[in-house]
Every structure is written in structure tokens, then in C-alpha cells.
């Protein structure tokens, strides 16, 4: 196998990992844009999405392709309920309080996962059609690595339509730009926030399913690392900015794969890569690559 084909293989791997980070990062960035809150539990919502779909496929008669829609929808509802229970009552509290609540929610979901699903890893039932190796000019690639970016792009197009063309989407952007003014203009804030949480969780769950198809090992703590890294992707791209989150996701996914591919000696440091990027970005461009700096009003 030539160097070029090896490189192409790494590239496709990087792109598909980047797509997954991007999908999860959108949820962080949308919530942060409106509520200025790091939803620490978002990574665990991602985990929940995979498990819900897993149990749906295994224990109901619903066909897998339908379950790939129902699972994320259910996850979206969980995300929405989470906001209602753990965040909404604290909306006017100091930020530290709501952050603590978010961390508590994250641990609750993780440990509920351990209680309900068991700590042992489970294998995700990937339909064969999504999971077989094809050879393209001597490069063996799993179909799923192609499917992931394609699905991601389709979802992004849909999301873009939603936030630029629909009334709810525009209200969402207004809230994110100027919470106070928008709330005075008669926008139903509670409804918009619920929709935001539903959509963020839905996208994370779709990402989760594809993650399960790509790395078919389910564990209750599987959301922690992808969650943290996707959050970093959102910060790198400029938090609150959806395009930024996508760019950050791809950057991080590609970077991580390429680091391991090009510098195999650093393989052990793979999980530290994202954090190093985060700290560099925060120091030199704290608003992220696509964010704008805001001056605090005194």
C-alpha cells in the first residue's frame, strides 16, 4: 500500500471522526449561544442516544432504520426534560450554580447508565449494509466512514434551513444575539430553549448512533471523552457559532487522527491533544476562530 493511499485512509478516518465531533459540538454551541451555559451533560445525552437506539433495535420489533429516527427523537425529549428539571429553575442564579447543576446532571446520567445498562461493554448491532469493507483502488475503507460525513452534511443543510428560514429558527438566533432585547420582543423563550435542547440532543444522538456503528462498543462512560472534545471543538470554532462548531469539530477530528498517524510515538497522548489545542486557542484567540469579541458593559 502506497503512502498516498495510506494518507487517504487517515484522511477519511479524520473526516468521519470530525463529523461526529461536529454533530455533538452543535448542541453545545446552540445551548451556550442562548443560555451561556456549558451543558456538561451533553456528552452523556450522546451516550443515552446510543443506548436507547440499541435497546430499541434489540428488544422491539421496530426496524433498525426507523429506530435510527425514533432513538434520537426520544433522546431529544430527554434533553428537553433535563433542561426543564435541572437548568430552568436556576436560570437567574449565578452561573457557578447552574454549572454545578450541569455537572450533577452529567454524573447522574452516567451512573444511571451504569445502573440501568450495566457497566460491561455491549456491542452495537450494526446492520451489515452500513458496515462492510470496500476496496477503492487498493484502499480498504469501511462504508460507514463515508456514510458519516454524508449524513452529517445532510443534517447541517437541514439545520441551516431551519435556523435561517423558519420562524422558530430565527427566534433562536435573535435570542442568541441579544437575550434581553429578544425576550422583550414577545419571543416565547421557554419554547425556544426547549426546541434548542431537543435539537441539540437529537443531533448528538444521531452522532452517537454513527459513533456506535463506527466504534461498536457501548459503555455508560462512552460520552465523557467525545463530549469534552466536542465542547472543545465548539470553543475552538467560537462558541455560540454553529459554523464555527462544525469547523472546530473537523479540525479536532482530523488533527487527532493525523497526530496518531504521523507521530505514532505520541499515540498515548491522543486524548490530551484536544485539551492542548483548547488551551492554545483560549490563550491566543479566546473568542475562537470564528467568534467575535464582546466588550462587557460596565
Amino acid at each position: 500500500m502506497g503512502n498516498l493511499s495510506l494518507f487517504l485512509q487517515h484522511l477519511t478516518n479524520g473526516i468521519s471522526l470530525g463529523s461526529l465531533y461536529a454533530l455533538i459540538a452543535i448542541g453545545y454551541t446552540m445551548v451556550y449561544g442562548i443560555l451561556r451555559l456549558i451543558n456538561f451533560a451533553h456528552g452523556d445525552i450522546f451516550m443515552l442516544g446510543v443506548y436507547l437506539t440499541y435497546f430499541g433495535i434489540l428488544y422491539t420489533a421496530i426496524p433498525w432504520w426507523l429506530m435510527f429516527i425514533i432513538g434520537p427523537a426520544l433522546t431529544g425529549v430527554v434533553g428537553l426534560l433535563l433542561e426543564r428539571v435541572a437548568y430552568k429553575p436556576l436560570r437567574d442564579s449565578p452561573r457557578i450554580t447552574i454549572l454545578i447543576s450541569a455537572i450533577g446532571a452529567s454524573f447522574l446520567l452516567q451512573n444511571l447508565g451504569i445502573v440501568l445498562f450495566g457497566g460491561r461493554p455491549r456491542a452495537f448491532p450494526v446492520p451489515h449494509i452500513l458496515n462492510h469493507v470496500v476496496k477503492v483502488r487498493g484502499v480498504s475503507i469501511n462504508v460507514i466512514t463515508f456514510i458519516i460525513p454524508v449524513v452529517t452534511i445532510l443534517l447541517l443543510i437541514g439545520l441551516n434551513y431551519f435556523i435561517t428560514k423558519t420562524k422558530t429558527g430565527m427566534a433562536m438566533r435573535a435570542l442568541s444575539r441579544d437575550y434581553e432585547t429578544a425576550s422583550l420582543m414577545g419571543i416565547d423563550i421557554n419554547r425556544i430553549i426547549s426546541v434548542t435542547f431537543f435539537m441539540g440532543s437529537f443531533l448528538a444522538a444521531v452522532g452517537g448512533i454513527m459513533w456506535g456503528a463506527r466504534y461498536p462498543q457501548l459503555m455508560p462512560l462512552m460520552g465523557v471523552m467525545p463530549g469534552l472534545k466536542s465542547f472543545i471543538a465548539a470553543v475552538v470554532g467560537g462558541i455560540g457559532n454553529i459554523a464555527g462548531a462544525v469547523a472546530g469539530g473537523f479540525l479536532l477530528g482530523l488533527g487527532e487522527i493525523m497526530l496518531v498517524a504521523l507521530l505514532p510515538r505520541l499515540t498515548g497522548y491522543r486524548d490530551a491533544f484536544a485539551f492542548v489545542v483548547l488551551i492554545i486557542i483560549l490563550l491566543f484567540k479566546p473568542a475562537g476562530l470564528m467568534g467575535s469579541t464582546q466588550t462587557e458593559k460596565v
Partner: protein
Amino acid sequence: MRDKRRTDLIALAALVCTVVVLLLANRYLDDYKIRIINLSGIYVTLGLSMNLINGFTGLFSLGHAGFMAVGAYTVALLTMPIPMKEMNFFFQPIVPWLANVEVGFLPALLAAGLISAFLGVLIGAPVLRLRDDYLAIATLGFAEIIRVVFTNTQSLTNGALGLKGIPNYTNTWWSWGVAFFTIWFVSFLIRGSYGKAFMAIREDEVAAEAMGINLFKHKVLSFAFASFFAGIAGGLLASLLGTIDPNMFRITLTFNILLIVVLGGLGRIAGTVVAAVIVTVMMEALRFLDESINLGFIQLKGIPGMRMVVFSIILILVVLLRKEGLFTRLKGRESSYAEN
């Protein structure tokens, strides 16, 4: 002024009581219970250390597990007998400058605190400029980086294999001695001008800066003290357990400390001490939730993870219902004319 004297008297009484309890405990309790007492003392130190940054200075830091790891490894590597080091590092020999070092517990603990504080300053200098939530994620990131680095530096930390056979110097006098030192230090710090400056930063950064308080200097100072105590507590823990590995120092550990701080009340010293003891004891007492126990006539099946579910729910409930922490008297709603 009279209030301060009263608090001092109460603190003195508590000190005397603790000494008596420890004397009795060492005499009559079994090893398992002594271990819980040790852990309580260590968590008192940890809780106060986190409360200093998060509660008093108002900076949301989640880096405690990382600083504890630094302290734990420092004490382990400095106190471990030389032959034991050779046994541990069978995979790859230890770096030469550590191979023949063996020092006493006190110098090792001090080294743990100082190295951790130094690292705190190094890390704090860049990230303390960040706003609260960014700071949380950056400090969490640093803790993760420390863990990953420790997993990979085979000849320094023995990597994922961890270290075994760390001498058990930690006893109740050490753990509670350090706890009382921390209580004293944090109380006196907070009572003085510097502590008040920390709280001013928590209340309003813009106003604090306008009053001539150098935000950066004071934040780094608070962070360094907190890292110092976290490092020492990590060292005590290593010496108590005798075995450490990088995976012990995950964010779950930080979560436990955060639980103590929130339960005890942000910016409250006595509350933190009580919460540390209660949480530590409950962590052990609720172990039955996770494990099966045989009562002779009936077999109770535990569910792994249930214990942490209970703690997570407690944390959320406290945040939702009792923001002041569990141990503060509810005062009448104070009239506030300042809403603007």
C-alpha cells in the same frame, strides 16, 4: 471582635474534641473504620482547598484531581524504599535522579505541596484570565493532560501500571493534623485583608479592580494556595492507600470534592468540614447500594453505580433547593433595595 473570639473558642473546643475522638478511635476501632477517619481528614483538606478557589474567590476550577495526582506521585516517589522502586519499575527502569532518593514523610509532603503549587501558578498564569465557565473547562483539561502524561511517562511514573508498595505513613494524626492546619490557614487567610480581597473579586471583578485590587495577582495567589493543599492531600492519600495509578485521578474525584463544597456551602468553612466528614462516611455507608451483602438469612443484591446516582441526585437537589449549603440556618428573606 467579640464574634471572632467566640469562633476561636468554638474552633479550639472542636480541636480538643477531635483529639479525644482520635485517641479513642485509635484504641477501639478496627482498621476499616480508622481508614474512613483518615479519608475524612483528607477530604476536609480537599474541600477547604476547593472552597478557597470556588467559594471564596469565585473562580470555577475543576482541576483538583490533577493537583492531587501530582502530590500523590511526588510523595510516592520520594518516600518509596529503593528496592521497592526497582520492583515497581520492572517494565522500564526509573529515571536515575529518582532511583536512589528516599526521604521522610514530612519533607515529601511539603515537596508535594510546593510542586503542586508551582504547577498551579504555571497553569493559573495563563488560564486565570478566562471567564468562569471557560476556566472550568480549561482546568478540567489540565487535570486530564496531567493524567494522560502520567500514563505515558513510563520511566517517571511507571505509566498505567501505577505504583505499589508506597509506605503507609498516613495515620489519623497526619490526616487530621493537616486538616486542622488547613482549617487554620484558610480561616486566617479569609479573615485578613487578602481574603477579603478574594471575596471582593468573587462579588464584583470590575469593582474590585477599580478599588485597586490586582485581579491577576490575587487569583494566582488563591489558586496557588488551593493547589498546595490539594497536592498535600494527594500525598496523604497515596500514603494511606499504598497503591496509586493514573486512573484514580479522574474527574470523578473532583466531583466528590465539589459535592462536599456544595453541600457545605460555597464560601463556608465550618460547613465544608462537616460536609467532608458526612460525605466520606456516607460514601462508605452507602457502599451496600453497590455491592451484594449477605445478611445470613437473606441475600441483598446491590446495583453497581447506585451509590453515585444517590450522590448526584443529592447534589442537584441541594443546588436547586438550598443554594447556601445544607448547614446554614435559613435566615429570613433579606430585603434588598439594590435590584437593578
